[in-house]
C-alpha cells in the first residue's frame, strides 16, 4: 500500500499548502498586493465596514481570522516565530495583558499613532493601545427601583438586593475585569466578600448574555443588572419591538460617579512580535484610531470613542455621556485577572 500512502501524503501536503496564510517568503512574489493579517476577537458589523474602509483608503487587503480571545492567544503562541499574525485585537484589556505576558506583542512607540488617546487606555510598557472604550454599568428597573436607590458597585452586595440581581456568568471577560478592578480598588479580601454578596443576591443562576439580563429586568425576574453600556444601546436601537420594550424597562446608571468612577474596559490592538507586515500593521492601527473608524464604532456598535473631537450621530449613546470613568490604567485589569478568576471559583459564581 505504499502507493496509497504516497497519495495520502501528497494530499495532506497539498491541503496544507493550499490554504497557507501569506508569510514573509511570499511577500516578494506578491509585492504588488499589500496585506495585513488580523487576529481579532471582535465580531461586530462595524468592523467589516472599518476594514473595508481601510482597504479602500490604503489599498491594503485585510486577512481576518476571528476567534475567542483566549484561543487566538494560544494559536499565536503555538505558531511561535512562524506566526503570520500582524495585529492582535481583543475586546478586553485582560486578554491584551495576557498576550503581552506571552510575548506576543512588539513594543511600539504609540506616541505618534495614539496621540489623542488618554494615558490610562494605553499600555504603560507600550505593547498595545485601546481603540474603543466600553463601560460596565448598572441597569435598574424603571418601575421598581427609585433613582438614587443604588449608586455604586459596592452596593450590589447589600442584602437589600437579595434575590433581585441579574448578572452573567463568571467566565465572561467583562465580569472578570470588573472583579479585577474591585480587587485593585479594595484588596482581595474585600473583593471576595463583595463577590460572595452578589452571589447571595442573584435572582437566578447566571444565564445568557448582557442583553438577557436586561430582558430579565423587563420580565420582572430581577430589579438590577450589570451590563456593558452598548448592549443597552443595542436593545434601544433595535428594530424589534420586544427589544425596545426591554430597554425601556430599565434605566442605565454609571456607578461610583462620586468616587472612583465607572469601570471601563477597552477593545485594544497590539502589533505582533513576529509580524511579517509591520508597516501595514502600523497603518491599520492608525486607521483604527482615525476619525472615520471611531465614528463607525460609535454609530454601529455604540462604543465610546477614545479620540476627542470625533463627530458621530447616536442619540442613545449621546444621552449616556459624559460620565466619570475610572482612571486606573486598564493594564491592571490584566494584572488582577487570575486573582479575579480564583475569587469567582471560591465564591461559587457560576
Amino acid at each position: 500500500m505504499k502507493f496509497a500512502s504516497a497519495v495520502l501524503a501528497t494530499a495532506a501536503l497539498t491541503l496544507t499548502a493550499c490554504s497557507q496564510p501569506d508569510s514573509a517568503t511570499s511577500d516578494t512574489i506578491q509585492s504588488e498586493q499589500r496585506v495585513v493579517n488580523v487576529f481579532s476577537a471582535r465580531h461586530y458589523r462595524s468592523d467589516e465596514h472599518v476594514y473595508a474602509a481601510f482597504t479602500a483608503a490604503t489599498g491594503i487587503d485585510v486577512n481576518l481570522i476571528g476567534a475567542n480571545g483566549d484561543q487566538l492567544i494560544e494559536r499565536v503562541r503555538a505558531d511561535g516565530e512562524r506566526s503570520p499574525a500582524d495585529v492582535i485585537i481583543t475586546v478586553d484589556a485582560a486578554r491584551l495583558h495576557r498576550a503581552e505576558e506571552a510575548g506576543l506583542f512588539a513594543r511600539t512607540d504609540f506616541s505618534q499613532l495614539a496621540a489623542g488617546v488618554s494615558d490610562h487606555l494605553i499600555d504603560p510598557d507600550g505593547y498595545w493601545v485601546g481603540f474603543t472604550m466600553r463601560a460596565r454599568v448598572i441597569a435598574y428597573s424603571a418601575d421598581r427601583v427609585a433613582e438614587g436607590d443604588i449608586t455604586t458597585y459596592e452596593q450590589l452586595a447589600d442584602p437589600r438586593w437579595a434575590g433581585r440581581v441579574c448578572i452573567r456568568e463568571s467566565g465572561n471577560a467583562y465580569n472578570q475585569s470588573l472583579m479585577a478592578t474591585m480587587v485593585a480598588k479594595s484588596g482581595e479580601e474585600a473583593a471576595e466578600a463583595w463577590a460572595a454578596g452578589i452571589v447571595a443576591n442573584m435572582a437566578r443562576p447566571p444565564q445568557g448574555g448582557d442583553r438577557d439580563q436586561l430582558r430579565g429586568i423587563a420580565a420582572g425576574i430581577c430589579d438590577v443588572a450589570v451590563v456593558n453600556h452598548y448592549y443597552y444601546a443595542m436593545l434601544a436601537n433595535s428594530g424589534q419591538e420586544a427589544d425596545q420594550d426591554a430597554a425601556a424597562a430599565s434605566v442605565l446608571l454609571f456607578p461610583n460617579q462620586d468616587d472612583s468612577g465607572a469601570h471601563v474596559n477597552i477593545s485594544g490592538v497590539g502589533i505582533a512580535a513576529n509580524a511579517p507586515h509591520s508597516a501595514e500593521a502600523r497603518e491599520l492601527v492608525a486607521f483604527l484610531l482615525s476619525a472615520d473608524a471611531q465614528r463607525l464604532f460609535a454609530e454601529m456598535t455604540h462604543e465610546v470613542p477614545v479620540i476627542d473631537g470625533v463627530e458621530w450621530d447616536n442619540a442613545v449613546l449621546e444621552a449616556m455621556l459624559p460620565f466619570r470613568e475610572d482612571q486606573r490604567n486598564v493594564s491592571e485589569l490584566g494584572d488582577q485577572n487570575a486573582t479575579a478568576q480564583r475569587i469567582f471559583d471560591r465564591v461559587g459564581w457560576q
Partner: protein
Amino acid sequence: MAVTGTAAPRAAQKGFNATSLAVVAALICAAPILAVAWIALTGDTGDYLAHLAQTRLPTYLTHSAYVAGVAALGTGLLGTSLGWLIARTQFPGREFLGWVLILPLAVPAYVAAYAWLDLSTAGGPLYTATNGLFPTIRGSWGAGLMFSFVLYPYVYLLARDAFASQSADAYDAARTLGSPPWHAFMHTALPMARPAIAAGLALVMMESLADYGTVSHLGAPTLSIGLVRAWSGAGSLVDAARLSLVLVVVALLIFGLERAQRRRARSVTASGKTRPAQRFVLRGWKGIAALSFCLLPLALGMFIPLGRLAYLALSEPSTTNLLDASLNSLTLAITAAIIAAALGLSTAYALRSKGIIATMSARAAGLGYAVPGAVAAVGVIAILSGTQQILDPIWRDLTGAVFPILLTGGAAALIFAYLSRFAAAAIGPAESALSRVTPALDGAARTLGATPLQTARRVHWPLIVGGLTSAGLLVFVEVLKELPATMILRPFNYDTLAVIAHSYAADERLGEAAMPSILITLVALLPMVFVARYLSSRSAGGQDR
C-alpha cells in the same frame, strides 16, 4: 479461534497490507490524545488544579454526570420505545417514519439549543404565552434534554434492529407462561435488546460529554467547559490537558463498560433459527396514538427548532456572505469523509485477519471518538508545532531557506483533528459492511479463479459499498456540525457555517446565527436521508415482510 499464525499469511495473501493502514489510522486517531497526555504528565505542576479541586471540580464532575445522565435517560426511553413501535408493530405511516425518525441526527445539538433557549427564555414566545410557567430550557438538564432530542436516533437505530432480529418466540413464550404484555416486554424483549441499547447509550453519553457548543450556550458547567476555561481563562495548557485526561478516562470507562457487558451478553444473541416477528397491528385510536408519539420527537428535534430559526432568520436577515463558508464546510466535510471511510475500511480489513496489531489499532482509533474537539485541537497543535520546531532547523541547515509550510496554518491540521475524532465512527459501519462478505464467499470466488484484488473488486466492493457510503456520510455530517476544533484550528479567512453560527449566537445575535444554523442542518439532512433509508432497508430486508 483463529490462531494468529495461520491468519497472518492469509492477510498477506490478499496482496495488500491492510494492517499497516490500520496502524496509520490508529496513529492519526490516537496521536493527539497521546500528545495531550504527554503534556499533562510532563508539564509543570502549579496549584491551579488543587484550587480547582477545592472549588469547581466537584461542580464540573457532577454536572457532566448530570448532563450525560439526562441524555442517556431521554434517549434511552425515546429510542427504545420508538424502536419497538417501528420494529414490532404496525400503524399508519410506520414505514415512512421508520427512516424519517433517524433524521434529527442532522441537527447539531447546539442549533437545537439556540432555538429552544430563545423560545423559552424570559421574553420569548413560550414564556410569555404561558405567563412564565414554561421553564426556561437551560443548564445541565436543558443540555441533557437537547441531546435527547437530537441524539435519540443512535439508540433508536440499534434498538430497532435488535427488536427486529430477536426471536419473537421468546416474547410469545413469556405470554404463554402467564406474563401480560408489559411484563413480557420488560422481561424478554428488553433484556434481549440490552446490548444494542447499551451501545447506543454509550455513544450518546460520549457525545454529550464531549460537547462544548451546547453546554456553553445553555450555561451548563461541565468538565468540557472547565477544560476550556482552564486553557483559555487561566492560561494553563497543562492543567487543561490534565482535565482532558479526566474526560478521556471517563469516556474510556463508558467504552469499557459497554464492551464488558457486550461480551457477557454474547450469549444473548438467539441461537438457532428465529421466526420473523409478526407485527402487532395497532388499530383505531391506538394507531393514531402511535403515530403521534412518533411525530413528537421529530417536532421536538427538527421542526420546532428549525421553525424558530427560520422565523429569526427572516426577521433579522443575515448580511454575512454564507457562500464561502458553505463551500468551506462542504470541502472539509467531504475530504474528511472520504479519508475516514478509507481508513475505516482498511481497519475493517485488517481486523479480519484477527491479528493482535490490527485489534490494538482499532481500539486505539476508538480512543479518538471519546475526546472533545477542543482536546483534539490542542493535541494537534502540540504535535504540529512540535514537528515544526524539529523541521525548521533541519530544513534551514539543509537548504538555507525557511521551511515553506506552516504546518498549523493549513486545512490539513483541521482534517487531522477531524480524523482523530471521527475516523473511529467509520470503523464500526465498515466492519459490519465487511462482515457481509463471509469467508465462504471469499473461498467461492478464489476457487473460481479470482485473484485477491479481483475478489475485492468484484465480490467485496458491491457488498460493502452501501455500508461504506453510509459510514462516510456519517463522518460527513459530524464534520459539518463540528465546532470547537474548527474554531481553534481553522486557517485565515476560512470560516465554516458552524463557526459563524456559534460566534453570532455567543454574541447574542441569534438572528444572524439562524441562517447558517439552518444551512448546516439542511446540508446535513440530505446525506442523512440516504443513510437513513439505507439502514432501514437493510434492517427491513428479510424480517418484517
